C-alpha cells in the first residue's frame, strides 16, 4: 500500500500528489514513469514521474481528471492509500549538453517536462520552454519552470494567457531567430505530431515521450506498441522517448482510441456512483 502524503489542486481538474514509495523515489530518473492501480478492482495506469524526494521517500505525480481511474484517484485524500505503485519504468532521458534546447509541454504533458528541463539545465544547456494549454486555468508549473529556463513562452487556444494560438506558432518564431540544437516535446499526440512535422522540415532533431495505452508496463503484453522507423517498438521497455520524425503518429492516435467506448462506460458509471455529474466547463 502506498500513502498519499500531499494533495493539491493546481489547475482546473489537475492534481499534484506526493506518494510515499521509497524504492521508486531512490531509483527514478528524469523521463521515467510509474504504473498505479488504486484497488484490487482497478486498472493499471501509467503516469510520468514529475520529481522525487529520495530523502523523504516521496514520488511526485501530476494528473488530470480524464478517465475513471484519474477521477477516482482525485477523489482520494491526503492520508489515503493506493494499492499498487510500480516503478520507475521506461528508459531515463539521455542527458547531454546540446547547446540550445527547446522543451515543449502541452496540456498535462507539461508535468513530464519539469524533470527533463532540470537535468538539461544542470549540465549547462540553454533552455527555452514553450508551454501550451487550452486555457489559462489549465496551465501548470509556471513558477517552477521559470526557475530552470532561460526563456519561457505560453500559448493558449483562447488567448487567456500568452499568445492566442499553438505551441508550434511560438516554436516557428523561436527557430527563425535562434539556432536550435534539439527539441523535446511532451503532450497530446496532435501537438507532438505538429511539432514533429515542423522540425522535420527544419532538420532539427526532436525527441518525444509517448503515452500509449499500457497494461503491465514491463514488456509482457505489447498493448503499448508503436511503429518507429517502420519497426514495432514497445513504449514500456524500448521507450518512452523516441525520435519524433520516425514515429507513426496516425497509428498511435488510433491505438489511443481503441477502448474509447469502454472508457466512457466506466467513467459514466463512476460518476453516477459518486452521485455527482461533473459538468465540463467550457
Amino acid at each position: 500500500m502506498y500513502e498519499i502524503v500531499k494533495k493539491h489542486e493546481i489547475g482546473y481538474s489537475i492534481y499534484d500528489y506526493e506518494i510515499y514509495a521509497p524504492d521508486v523515489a531512490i531509483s527514478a530518473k528524469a523521463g521515467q514513469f510509474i504504473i498505479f492501480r488504486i484497488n484490487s478492482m482497478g486498472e493499471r495506469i501509467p503516469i510520468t514521474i514529475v520529481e522525487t524526494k529520495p530523502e523523504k521517500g516521496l514520488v511526485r505525480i501530476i494528473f488530470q481528471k480524464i478517465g475513471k481511474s484519474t477521477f477516482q484517484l482525485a477523489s482520494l485524500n491526503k492520508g489515503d492509500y493506493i494499492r499498487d505503485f510500480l516503478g520507475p519504468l521506461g528508459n531515463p532521458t539521455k542527458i547531454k549538453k546540446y547547446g540550445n534546447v527547446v522543451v515543449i509541454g502541452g496540456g498535462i504533458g507539461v508535468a513530464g517536462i519539469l524533470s527533463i528541463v532540470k537535468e538539461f539545465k544542470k549540465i549547462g544547456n540553454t533552455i527555452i520552454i514553450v508551454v501550451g494549454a487550452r486555457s489559462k486555468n489549465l496551465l501548470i508549473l509556471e513558477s517552477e519552470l521559470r526557475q530552470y529556463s532561460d526563456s519561457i513562452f505560453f500559448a493558449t487556444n483562447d488567448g487567456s494567457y500568452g499568445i492566442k494560438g499553438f505551441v508550434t506558432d511560438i516554436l516557428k518564431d523561436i527557430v527563425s531567430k535562434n539556432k536550435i540544437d534539439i527539441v523535446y516535446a511532451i503532450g497530446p499526440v496532435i501537438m507532438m505530431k505538429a511539432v514533429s512535422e515542423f522540425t522535420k522540415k527544419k532538420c532539427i532533431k526532436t525527441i518525444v515521450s509517448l503515452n500509449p495505452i499500457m497494461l503491465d508496463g514491463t514488456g509482457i503484453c505489447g498493448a503499448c506498441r508503436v511503429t518507429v522507423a517502420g519497426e514495432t517498438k514497445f513504449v514500456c521497455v524500448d521507450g518512452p522517448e523516441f525520435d519524433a520524425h520516425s514515429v507513426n503518429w496516425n497509428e498511435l492516435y488510433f491505438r489511443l482510441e481503441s477502448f474509447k467506448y469502454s472508457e466512457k462506460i466506466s467513467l459514466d458509471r463512476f460518476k453516477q456512483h459518486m452521485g455527482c455529474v461533473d459538468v465540463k466547463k467550457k
Partner: protein
Amino acid sequence: MLKKNNKNTKKPTLHEMLIEAKKCLQCKNPPCIKGCPIEVNIPMFIKYFLESNLQKAIKIIKQKNNFPTISGIVCPQEKQCEKFCILNKKNNNNMSVSIGNLEYYIASSTTIIEPHLIKNNKKNIKIAIIGSGPAGLTCTYDLLKVGYDVTVYESLHSIGGVLRYGIPEFRLPKKILEREINNLKKLGMNIVLNTFIGRTKSLQELFDDGYKSIFIATGAGLPVLPKISGENLNHIYSSNEFLVRINLMHSYKFPNYDTPIYKGKNVVVIGGGNTAIDSSRTILRSGVNNVKLIYRKSENEMSARKEGIFHAKHEGVEFITLTELVKFIGDENGNVKAIECVKNKIIMSINSNEKQFKKIVGSNHIIKTDMVILALGLHPNPTISLLSKKINTDSLGYVIIDDNFMTSISGVFAGGDIVGGSTVIEAMGMAKKAAKAIVKFIC
C-alpha cells in the same frame, strides 16, 4: 460471465483412478520415468496409491516435484511420461496409464503442508528470487525447506507469473495456485510486489541488502510479432495482452473491474501452441461464437496438447490449418477488418523424410475478422540487461548459465524460460537443480 464451463479441469473420481493405477505394469526398467523431464518415480507412487497409502505416494512425487497439482494439469503428459508408457507400445495408441490424472488426484487429495518444515531452524541466510512464476516458486520452496530466508520479488501486483496471468482458469483453477502459494507463505516465503528488479533495484543493491545469492526466474517476456504490414492495427492483440486482461485484470467482469476487453464478432487466433488453444477457448467463454484458429502447418505439427485441441474443436473453434498470414487489412479508423492469408502445402523432402511447408502460389485469400489474437511465442525481455552489465546473454537475449545454473556473476543463478526453457515442467525441473546448486554455493 463465463459461459461454457463444461470442459473445465475437474478432479477425477477415486474409482476412475483405481482403474488407471491397476493398469500399471510396474515395469522393472520404467520408460515413463525416462520420459519425465524431472524423473518422478511414477511406478512407485502408483504402487503406494494402490496400497491406499496416499502419504507415501505424495512423498515420492514431492521428492522431485514441488507442485504436482499444477504439473498434473499443465504438463503435456502425452509427449512425456505417458508417451513412453509400455502400454502404448503393447496396444495401439492412447492406452497408457493416465499418469497426469493420477498425479493430480493424489496431490489434491493430500494436505501438502509439511509441518516439520515450519519449525525448521531458520538459517540466517537471505536469498532473493526474481520472478514468481513456476521456476521462481519451485526454487523458493526448495530453499525454504533448507531453512533459508527467501524473498520473492515480483514486478506485477500479484504472484504466480504465467500461472497467474497466462494459463486460464478453466485449465488451471486459481484456487490450486492459491493453495500452493499459501503453503509457501506458511513455510516463510517473503513477497515483495510491484518491484521490477533492474529498474526499481539492481542486483548489486540486492547484494548490498544482504542477500547471499540471487535466482533469476523472470520468464520469457516479450510476445513475438509477425513483422508484417498492419500488425499494430486496433484489436490485434498478443495472446499475452489478451490473457493478462482476462486472467490478471479480470476484464471479463468489466465494468465491475476497470480493465476493459474488446469483444469481436469474428475472432481469429493465430498459432498452434497451448497459448493459441488457451486464447481461443478463453474468447469462446467470453460469449463470442465465431472463433477461427489459423495455423501455418498441419494439425500434426501443433505443439499444443492433444487434449486442448480436442476440447477446442468440441467447444466450437474452427481450425484452419496450412494457412499462413500475409498481412492485416484495416478500416479508416485504424481497426482491423480482415487478414490476407496464403495456403501452404506439405512437401516431403526426399533426403530426410522431413516435412516442409511451401506457399501455394496464387492461393491468397481474405478472411474477415474484427479481432485477432497472436500466439506466436515469446522472446527474452530486453530489460534483462538492466539487472547488471555483467550478466552475459546469448545473441537472442537468453541468460547464459553454466552446468550449475550459475550466470556470469558469482552467486547469481538463473532458470526457466529466461535461459531457454519452454514448459512449466522444464522451468520447475531447472529451478530444482538450481536450488541444489545455490545450497552448494552457500555451504
